[in-house]
């Protein structure tokens, strides 16, 4: 039985006051999160608290998947086996040429005294779920800081670039897909080496190639690969295919729409590439280099700028 005194004496602050308090708290958090990134520790703690709930939510799906896998028809497996064998044969042929090409490439690089590109190590990760945030394109993968993931690592699948790790939690990591509105990736047109930057559009299926002159040599069906000049993505990975070009005489730039090569919203397994170890050193900031400070400072900055 409820034996507390009548409610009209002890109801705490008025609802409007509470709303104002919690509303302001939320707005404060949003500003801290969006503008200053101060809210990351709180976010980490909350993700850790929600982790058991997420496991609970994912458990039925995983059990169902296991059962479906178990009952997969033998016929289907045989068919798949045959197809895979054919593909293996096909790729064996490619592999032979690839080996000789790799050897040749290595030799040429040595000849040119070029720094050999170190193979990157990679971490296999599985997409747990797509974030239920309708305003951005993100997926959550099942590897986190405990597996050595860092923010900024590139994520690929068997066809091309999927995205980039943007937040790392202890056991999970957040991957921003290349179709996200805030994501940009430096690319090259594979056919002629034209450099450009592909921006996500946020609709989940396309990318935009912005700031390309209307008369630039870009054709429908061109393949875009990573140029590698950002140091995040290794060069040469397929990113997208040009699907539509609108050239309007009223604008200086062409409107070029591309479709991502990788299954950004299809596959479950992805590879997280580790950071390139032999990056070119970052140029030292001008203010940080007063080694031989005989010259007046403003001349140095003018020369650097």
């Amino acid at each position, binding site marked *: 039985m409820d034996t507390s005194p009548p*409610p009209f004496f002890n109801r705490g602050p008025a*609802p409007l006051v509470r709303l104002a308090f919690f509303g302001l708290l939320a707005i404060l*958090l949003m500003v801290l*999160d*969006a503008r200053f990134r101060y809210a990351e520790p709180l976010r980490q703690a*909350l993700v850790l608290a929600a982790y058991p709930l997420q496991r609970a939510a994912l458990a039925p799906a995983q059990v169902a998947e296991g059962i479906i896998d178990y009952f997969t028809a033998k016929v289907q497996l045989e068919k798949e086996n045959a197809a895979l064998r054919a593909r293996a044969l096909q790729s064996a042929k490619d592999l032979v040429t690839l080996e000789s090409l790799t050897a040749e490439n290595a030799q040429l690089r040595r000849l040119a005294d070029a720094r050999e590109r170190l193979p990157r190590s990679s971490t296999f990760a599985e997409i747990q779920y797509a974030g239920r945030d*309708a*305003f*951005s394109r993100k997926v959550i993968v099942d590897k986190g800081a405990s597996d050595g993931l860092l923010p900024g690592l590139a994520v690929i699948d068997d066809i091309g670039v999927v995205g980039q790790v943007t937040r790392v939690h202890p056991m999970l990591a957040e991957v921003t897909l290349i179709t996200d509105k805030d994501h940009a990736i430096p690319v090259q047109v594979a056919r002629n080496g034209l450099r450009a930057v592909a921006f996500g559009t946020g609709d989940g299926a396309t990318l935009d190639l912005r700031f390309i002159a209307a008369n630039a040599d870009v054709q429908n069906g061109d393949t875009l690969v990573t140029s590698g000049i950002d140091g995040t993505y290794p060069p040469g990975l397929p990113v997208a295919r040009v699907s539509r070009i609108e050239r309007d005489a009223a604008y200086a730039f062409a409107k070029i729409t591309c479709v991502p090569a990788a299954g950004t919203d299809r596959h479950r397994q992805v590879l997280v590439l580790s950071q390139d170890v032999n990056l070119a050193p970052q140029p030292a900031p001008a203010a940080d280099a007063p080694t031989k400070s005989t010259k007046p400072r403003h001349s140095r900055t003018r020369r650097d700028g």
Partner: protein
Amino acid sequence: MAYQFEDRPQRILLPARGGFIAVTILVALVLNLLPWRDVTGLPDWTALALVFWCIHQPRKMGIGVAWALGIIMDAANGALLGQHALAYSVLTFASIAFSRRILWFPIWPQALHVFTLLFSCQLIMVLVRTLSGGSFPGLLWFSGSVLAALLWPVVTFIFLIPQRLPESIDETRPL
């Protein structure tokens, strides 16, 4: 045509248990965290459960709880921290403020009220996210509110089951 409020038989319900409220909210949260993939336009189960308990038990549900649930939703989905918290706080406030009025209506007009509440909750999120640089999710996203409102009678039926059970089961009772 006016509804005949006096003619409807009304059942006197048992008091709601705090434990059951907590369980339903937790289940709604887990439903929200299910791997929905890229399906847009699904109802926000947590918001629906919050609205239900705010309307039916305005004294047992508070803005603080809604805020905490919202912040968990934000963190788990990688959304802007505070986006759901703000929307849920306003949603809870409005639901509690309108709770006495809404319960006077039959079930479908109630659902219409719930749609308005959930839709304004989504509008707040759109406003917050587009202001902070997010992309507009498309009109299909708002169908979540419509679906949630259509589910209102079902939710009402399920959530009130424990309160409709007889308090003590009497074997010798004729009915």
